[in-house]
């Protein structure tokens, strides 16, 4: 039996900030969810099920927050459940929600992902509450050193990406960082936080949430007929691999390669670099852009940095990456994957405003988590899937 085609008909996100001290956690998820509902022109009672995603509970100290948030998300009497796949969770949440529609279990599903990093301290939490926590940057820095050494990339590549994503963020009113005077020199001269990563090559800690409303083919076509073109889900995939074993390739993890090709196959993509118009990749530290370009076969192995250096991933380049400003500009961890997924949908709907990439018809979104071991990706398009 063929799957039900899935359409993204509503998108919402919060203004991401270092601290949303105007809102409770419930208020934060509500802001994003209400915007997604309004965008979909639906009400709370139209929603059949709610899927909530977030990263470790220890970040805000609310255990099982999905129970506490059912009221804020109109969940009374409905299926509400929670997804948790570390940093990739926002993407996994969107995918789980899409499966509820594609399997015809539900017709209209709300997916919400969030993090209120200001309530706790990510570095402290990741270190188990002990001194000397290396944090996420410290965990990834050695792999970045390995990538730089193996690929022979010049060190300015990282600085260039840090500038590019922050300049893209200036087009995105929801982005946390709006660094108007960012420059390669400023990145280079910013403190070395996790050698070889500078402070300005790293993501901020943000409070924020993202939400999408997904529905079936009839719902998608109705929205299109109403002049609100949906984003059509062309392929989804999640893959995992163990964090640690002899022979693991941490620079181009096999789970990431497999995840990407599973999506490409579903979407009928055989030459991803040519057939995808824009990508939102999870880049919390600058060097992950070339690593994922290679890790998802958008560039040949060892040459992702050359795409960057040639300006191909710039906003006006031939393969724009992270027009939203990316994780480097907003990082509410649990929501960060969702933000990639909803940005890809915005792009193919032609609804991205100032950060709209011209002619975006097929967009790729990716999120990864933990020790670069969990992957979630989808491809969305402006046309319904064929067949």
């Amino acid at each position, binding site marked *: 039996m063929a799957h039900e085609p899935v359409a993204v008909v509503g998108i919402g996100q919060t203004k991401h900030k270092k*601290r949303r*001290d*105007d*809102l*409770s*956690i*419930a*208020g934060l998820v*509500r802001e994003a969810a209400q915007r997604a509902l309004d965008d979909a022109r639906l009400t*709370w*009672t139209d929603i059949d099920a709610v899927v909530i995603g977030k990263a470790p509970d*220890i970040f*805000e*100290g609310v255990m099982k927050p999905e129970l506490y948030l059912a*009221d*804020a*998300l*109109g*969940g*009374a009497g409905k299926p509400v459940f929670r997804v948790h796949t570390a940093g990739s969770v926002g993407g996994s949440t969107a995918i789980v929600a899409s499966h509820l529609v594609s399997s015809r279990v539900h017709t209209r599903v709300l997916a919400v992902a969030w993090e*209120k990093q*200001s*309530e*706790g*301290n990510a*570095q*402290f*939490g990741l270190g*188990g*509450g*002990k*001194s*000397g*926590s*290396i*944090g996420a*940057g*410290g965990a990834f820095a*050695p*792999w970045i*050193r*390995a990538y730089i*050494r*193996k690929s022979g990339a010049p060190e300015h590549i990282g600085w260039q990406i840090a500038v590019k994503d922050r300049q893209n963020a200036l087009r995105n009113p929801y982005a946390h960082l709006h660094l108007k005077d960012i420059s390669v020199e400023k990145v280079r001269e910013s*403190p*070395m*936080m*996790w*050698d070889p990563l500078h402070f300005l090559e790293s993501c901020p800690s943000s409070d924020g949430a993202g939400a999408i409303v997904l529905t079936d083919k009839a719902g998608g076509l109705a929205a299109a007929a109403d002049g609100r073109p949906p984003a059509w889900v062309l392929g989804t995939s999640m893959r995992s691999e*163990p*964090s*640690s*074993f*002899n*022979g*693991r*390739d*941490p*620079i181009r993890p096999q789970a990431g390669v497999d995840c990407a090709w599973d999506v490409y196959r579903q979407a009928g993509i055989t030459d991803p670099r040519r057939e995808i118009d824009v990508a939102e990749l999870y880049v919390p530290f600058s060097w992950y852009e070339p690593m994922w370009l290679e890790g998802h076969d958008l560039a040949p192995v060892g040459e992702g940095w050359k795409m960057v250096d040639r300006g191909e991933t710039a906003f006006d380049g031939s393969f724009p990456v992270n027009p939203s400003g990316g994780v480097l500009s907003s990082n509410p961890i649990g929501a960060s994957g969702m933000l990639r997924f909803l940005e890809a949908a915005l792009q193919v709907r032609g609804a991205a405003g100032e950060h709209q990439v011209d002619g975006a018809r097929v967009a790729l979104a990716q999120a990864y988590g933990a*020790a670069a071991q969990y992957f979630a990706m989808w491809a969305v398009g402006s046309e319904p899937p064929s067949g």
Partner: protein
Amino acid sequence: MSTQTSQTIQFPYKRTLGPVIGRFFSELTALRIVGIRCGDRVVVPPMEYDPQTGEQLAEHYVEVGPAGTVVSWTWVPEPGPHHPLDRPFAYALVKLDGADTNLLHVLDTGGEDTVSTGMRVAPRWRAEPVGRIDDIEAFVPGETPEGPTAGEPADVRTMEFFSTITYTDVLSPTLERYAASMRAGVITGQRCPRCDRVFLGRGYCSVDALRLGPEHEEALPDHGVVSNYTIVTPTPYPGQKETEPFARASVVLHGDEMVVSQQQIIGVPVADIRVGMRVKAQWFPEAERNAAEISSKGWGTVAGFIEGWVPTGEPDEPAEQFMDRVF
């Protein structure tokens, strides 16, 4: 005999209350309890969203109580360290006068035989309320609140608190053997018969999903090569003791057996650490070795047994062979 390990971690949180819960706590500092109008009901404590329809509630606050009626209760005969009172008490659902919902709180009556459903109770306030639910220390029998006289309300927008968790682990047989071996100063790994990879105290092969038992164990060298590292500029947070940049390195045990990650390299400035550097373990004195860091949630750690790794002074190994071995 089984070995238990125990660890306590403490986390600081700063809860942003938002307008509605913030108002509730602000009112408590003036010894007032407020609910919120939700249709024709008054919900206490106030909620931001209608629990039935999901609609946002207008901020229409209603003062309730302070006295109320016990709707239901359960007796706590032996309070533990996390309970709100240090003597026997009841948890009770109290329907405050004017409210349509029940507030779960503490009832201090002196004895189980003095509690009954339908009894009238009133709050006993903390001497100096700060804007937390335990500003009401407990409800006590009667109609009259106890405690200080009301002052002006404070504007309470956040609540700061520590959360403490103690984990107690019973070590698996694999980890028991691992800990015993480490106490004796020997790193023991398990070699997968299918893929020939070695794992520390894991009890299974991560690649083949095969169970690894005592028959797969072998002693590993306690020397190896720095495969990669990072130098971290410390950021301040509660409990952070590091003030100067510090390094954490991955060490591949000699023979390419296994990566031990997040290790300290001892006896050299952090700037001298290199990929390919040969190092050997510096064990804690035998009497000081302990298994406290071993937990059933992870695999074998060397923390508590090995203080760090000291350069041997031998020529480096080629960096390229090792640098992508990090975890």
